[in-house]
């Protein structure tokens, strides 16, 4: 929520500088002093007969629309040997249907003046277009077409999988921090599929076939496993009519249920080290903590969210103020808690030590800040500051219809209704200093902690031979 700068970065079909921040909160209940006319409309939700959910949020500030189709199928639904297939299929979604040639999807969106992209995460795969409002039906027809009529050609696949491997090299293999996160997840999660990277292991990509992609498409791409989100200058009823027209005829499928694969309790600290060409060392601490499953009941999750904001929710929040600015033991320090997910979640503390400090020392110093809150609590002033930003954040995010659509989709994919977005804000506003102190005391021991450390290698040194990646821990 506030200042959670450590976020899993989804994989995109296309490289672009995407600066959107997925603010996890969306508001309709505004501050009392605002004139009524500036209040945003509620999002409206519909269900097509084939089980496809349609969520529309009208926003008439500008004549544009964000149109998204989210599929509840991400890397956590993959199996060993074909990791990365969710992302590979996402790439293939641009490679033609029974009526469109490879690349024609993008040509048509571009000719409409649209911007488009797609993203794959652990929990879901999403596709979107941003367009002038009169073009909505055309992009909707295109999305409906590829939901049902994708053609997976062997030759196209063999070329595209090379692109996917280049993407993995670019985003992970050659990037020290992403390598650390890959090792962290593979260490923290043993049984749960969050163990595997979104991109998939390189060996799985090298051995992937068009049949793997086909099986994935047939298994998961169905209207009853999808949510449409439309925000912008539209009429909700008209959007529903268009959705009926284009998606209503696509038959429902029996969609498999991914088994829970619950992560067994961790019984002691785990450590993993990554050596990679870099200048500065880096350390990240991951504590297993509760996710947000029930907005009304999961008060500990809300308290952890506020704790993260107190540690790292604004410029002068505790970690930056103490470790970077005052004591100068770190060049950067942060906290992150992304509590909205289908699977288990982690509370992260991370940092780059300043010259003269080791990662071992920084690890202790980061934990000491949580301990300080566990012992002494937080001040009312800090709580107030964090909450002021929550409230303002609800207003600021209304500047972007795209951001609002992302927020709705993220909630829905995690099994939380978008209608709960406001309730999350209410619950966060109600978090007390005692609750923050209590979670700081409860969840930050050794037993459920995983620590991943980057050991920098000089770039002149020859790279260590690539170890089989699944065995990193």
């Amino acid at each position, binding site marked *: 929520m506030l200042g959670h700068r450590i976020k899993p970065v989804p994989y995109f079909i*296309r*490289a*672009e*500088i995407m600066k959107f921040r997925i603010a996890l909160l969306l508001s309709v209940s505004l*501050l009392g*002093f*605002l*004139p009524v006319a*500036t209040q945003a409309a509620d999002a409206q939700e519909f269900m097509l007969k084939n089980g496809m959910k349609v969520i529309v949020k009208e926003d008439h*500030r*500008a*004549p544009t629309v964000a149109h998204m189709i989210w599929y509840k199928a991400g890397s956590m639904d993959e199996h060993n040997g074909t990791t990365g297939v969710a992302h590979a299929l996402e790439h293939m979604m641009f490679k033609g249907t029974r009526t469109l040639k490879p690349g024609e999807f*993008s*040509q048509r969106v*571009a*000719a*409409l*003046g649209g*911007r488009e992209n797609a993203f794959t995460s652990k929990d879901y795969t999403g596709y979107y277009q*941003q*367009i*002038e409002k009169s*073009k909505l039906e055309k992009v909707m027809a295109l999305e409906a077409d590829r939901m049902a009529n994708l053609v997976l050609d062997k030759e196209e696949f063999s*070329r595209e999988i*090379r692109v996917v*491997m*280049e*993407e993995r*090299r*670019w985003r992970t*293999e*050659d990037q020290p921090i992403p390598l650390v996160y890959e090792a962290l997840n593979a260490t923290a999660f043993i049984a749960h599929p969050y163990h595997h990277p979104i991109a998939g292991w390189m060996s799985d990509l090298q051995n992937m076939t068009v049949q793997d992609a086909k099986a994935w498409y047939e298994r998961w791409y169905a209207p009853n496993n999808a949510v449409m989100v439309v925000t912008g200058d539209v009429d909700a009823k008209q959007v529903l009519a268009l959705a009926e027209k284009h998606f209503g005829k696509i038959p429902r499928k029996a969609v498999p249920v991914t088994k829970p694969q619950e992560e067994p309790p961790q019984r002691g600290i785990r450590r993993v080290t990554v050596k990679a*060409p*870099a*200048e*500065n060392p880096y350390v990240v601490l991951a504590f297993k903590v509760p996710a947000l499953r029930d907005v009304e009941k999961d008060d500990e999750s809300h308290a952890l969210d506020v704790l993260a904001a107190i540690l790292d929710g*604004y*410029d*002068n929040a505790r970690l930056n*103020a103490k470790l970077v*600015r005052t004591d*100068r033991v770190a*060049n950067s320090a942060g906290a992150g808690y992304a509590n909205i997910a289908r699977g288990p979640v982690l509370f992260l503390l991370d940092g780059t030590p*300043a*010259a003269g400090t080791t990662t071992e020392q920084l690890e202790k110093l980061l934990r000491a800040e949580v301990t300080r809150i566990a012992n002494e609590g937080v001040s009312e002033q800090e709580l107030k*500051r964090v909450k*002021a*930003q929550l409230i*303002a*954040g609800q*207003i*600021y995010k*209304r*500047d972007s*219809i795209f951001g609002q659509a992302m927020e709705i989709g993220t909630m829905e994919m995690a099994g939380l209704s978008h209608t709960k977005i406001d309730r999350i804000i209410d619950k966060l506003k109600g978090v007390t200093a005692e609750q923050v102190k209590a979670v700081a005391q409860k969840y930050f021991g050794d037993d459920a902690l995983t620590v991943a450390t980057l050991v920098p290698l000089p*770039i*002149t*040194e*020859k*790279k260590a031979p690539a170890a089989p990646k699944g065995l990193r821990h």
Partner: protein
Amino acid sequence: MKRLLLAFLFTFVSAGPAGAALKIQSWTLANGAKVLFVENHTIPVLDISVEFDAGSRRDPKGKAGAAELTNAMLARGVRESTTPYAEPAMTEAQISDAIADVAAQRGGGAGGDRAGASLRTLSSRAERDASITLLSRILAHPSFPDNFLERDKARMISAIKEDETKPESIANKAFWRLLYGSHPYSQYPTVPSVEAVTRDDLVAFHAAHYVANRAVIAMIGDITRTEAEAIAQQLTARLPQGAPLPSMPLVEAVPATEERIPHPATQAHLLTGMPAIVRGDPDYFPLIVGNYSLGGGGFVSRLTREVRDKRGLSYSVYSYFNPMAQPGPFTAGLQTQKEQTDEALKVVRDTVAAFLRDGPTPQELKAAKDNLIGGFALRIDNNRKILDNIAAIGFYNLPLDYLDTWTAKVEKVTIADVKEAFQRKLALDKMSTVIVGNAK
């Protein structure tokens, strides 16, 4: 990387709005500050930026990084002052907390040409007044505390060293160095150049560049014209008048070179290009229309088709023009598995050569115009995008109807226009190339 990001940002910004009813009001204050304002009451938010000719091209010789450090340190503390208002000193922590208390968001930074600060605030009176006062003081009265300078220099040096391990940053720095010879655009902060920066340098740089008569204020949001006028006054009341800045050296043609830098990464990073275009150049529209077909149009560009779709050589391949105050670069780039670097470079050069020779096909020209014109509404559909646009219009002295005439100017471009503009601005034998990761 900084430059690369700014390049993208500025390229997109340059392609601003038209057609739509975006009313930009503009006026100049008695102190010389220029104001651009869009009134918009749809959300209770106000966005402001204040920019100066204080980018890195103004770095003192041998002290690359001074512009960036000056900008980064604006909010590290403000000094006590007596004129025009009696105001106490504030520490960095006090400034940060005061901004957080009113839930404002402070931004800004230093690019090649411009540097400044931005603010997003609630438009309600109390929050707005408090945050704007803070912004005014940060711009005018930074105290540049010595101990924080040491800390910020250490952090910057650490970041530079980190960058020196990353193939993308290495390539980017080498690219600007090859293209710009002795011109300040070729300079980037190094460990010695940052170490050489003193507090006196920052004080002098700030005094010379953060001045009322060269301030460009852009505002969009939930305030009236009368309020905007008062805010513009408030933002610049504390700023001094500055003496004229020395004129910049010209960007001179530098012989094309190819530099290969070894690196252990699995992928090679390749950049090729040359200095090409200033802001406001009449070739701008033919160039952006043409570049859409060459390498700007994402999935539908020639470079993507040749390099990615046909050969699977790269995930990301692109080209763009980055118009600046002085001729900014044309850049084409990609990353690819090392072993296929030469193949990829050849495809890029052949693709650029063919485009220079023939220009776009009629179908390509139509596709480019359809996208640029049809997508125009997306360039101005929120406050942030509009702020970026009007800030650029103000700083680069683009006409106030720039956005209104934008689609018409795109529409007018012909194949001959594209061909001629590309041939005027680019030549394959003048393009320099950097490859990081495949030394041979």
